[in-house]
């Protein structure tokens, strides 16, 4: 039996999530922010699969299946939004996109 337990996977997942969060906060390119969001989603997926495995319950994996589907749809719409935004403003830099700011 392997010595790798649920906490190991959860810690990897937490660290990966924090990396994604750091990317969203630090980076200023919309595309990189979007990739960091994908990183966070994947960290959540890893936690769900690990929890599903170590609790003898397949429901977590079904949830990951749905999350992957929704993430694919979200990427399609989000990238279309970024392209539309770039077409209008000629930039993907968040500090140039301040129309909604007070």
């Amino acid at each position, binding site marked *: 039996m392997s010595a790798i*337990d649920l906490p190991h996977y*959860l810690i990897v997942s*937490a660290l990966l999530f924090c*990396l994604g969060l750091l990317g969203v906060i630090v980076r200023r390119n919309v595309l*990189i922010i979007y990739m960091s969001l994908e990183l966070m989603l*994947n960290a959540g997926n890893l936690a769900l699969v*690990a929890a599903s495995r170590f609790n003898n319950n*397949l429901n977590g*994996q079904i949830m990951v299946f749905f999350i992957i589907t929704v993430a694919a749809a979200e990427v399609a719409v989000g990238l279309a939004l970024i392209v539309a935004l770039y077409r209008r403003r000629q930039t993907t830099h968040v500090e140039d996109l301040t129309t909604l700011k007070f």
Partner: protein
Amino acid sequence: MQDVFFYIFAGLALLCGALVIANPVSRNPVTSAMFLVLTIVSLAGLFVLLHAFFLAAVQVLVYAGAVIVLFLFVIMLLDLKEEERRRIKLFMAGLAVLAVGTIAAVMIRTIKLAHPAGTLARVRVEGSADALGRMLFSSNFALPFELVSLLLLVAMIGAILLSKKDLR
């Protein structure tokens, strides 16, 4: 043997994840996308170690195959040469690292407190395509499954509409 693979894949995922957000050599978004592929493939390896074989395949197919290709298309569609020159403000980056580091410390402490190591021993669940498919088409998940297909249709129409030239 499995432990070695766990450490290899986990280390690779974290290393490539770090290189996605902050690459010391190149600030080109294409490099970030390539490291995102590596992260996703190592996560698929972790899924295989967790016996989630179907999800590992789906992960590689959907993320590495579809999502990253979409990212690369958009990166190459937009001409981003001008973006590369700007620097990140160091003070703000330091504050962000501090804040996220605190969150990470809280998370890891919580995980250690909630799951003392060695309590979970007997695992039998197998995430094969057979088992997952049977669950997915059972009465519990048939409705969400159909709704997801509707969501994909809506996303497709939305993406087409947003990409039209005269967007109002």
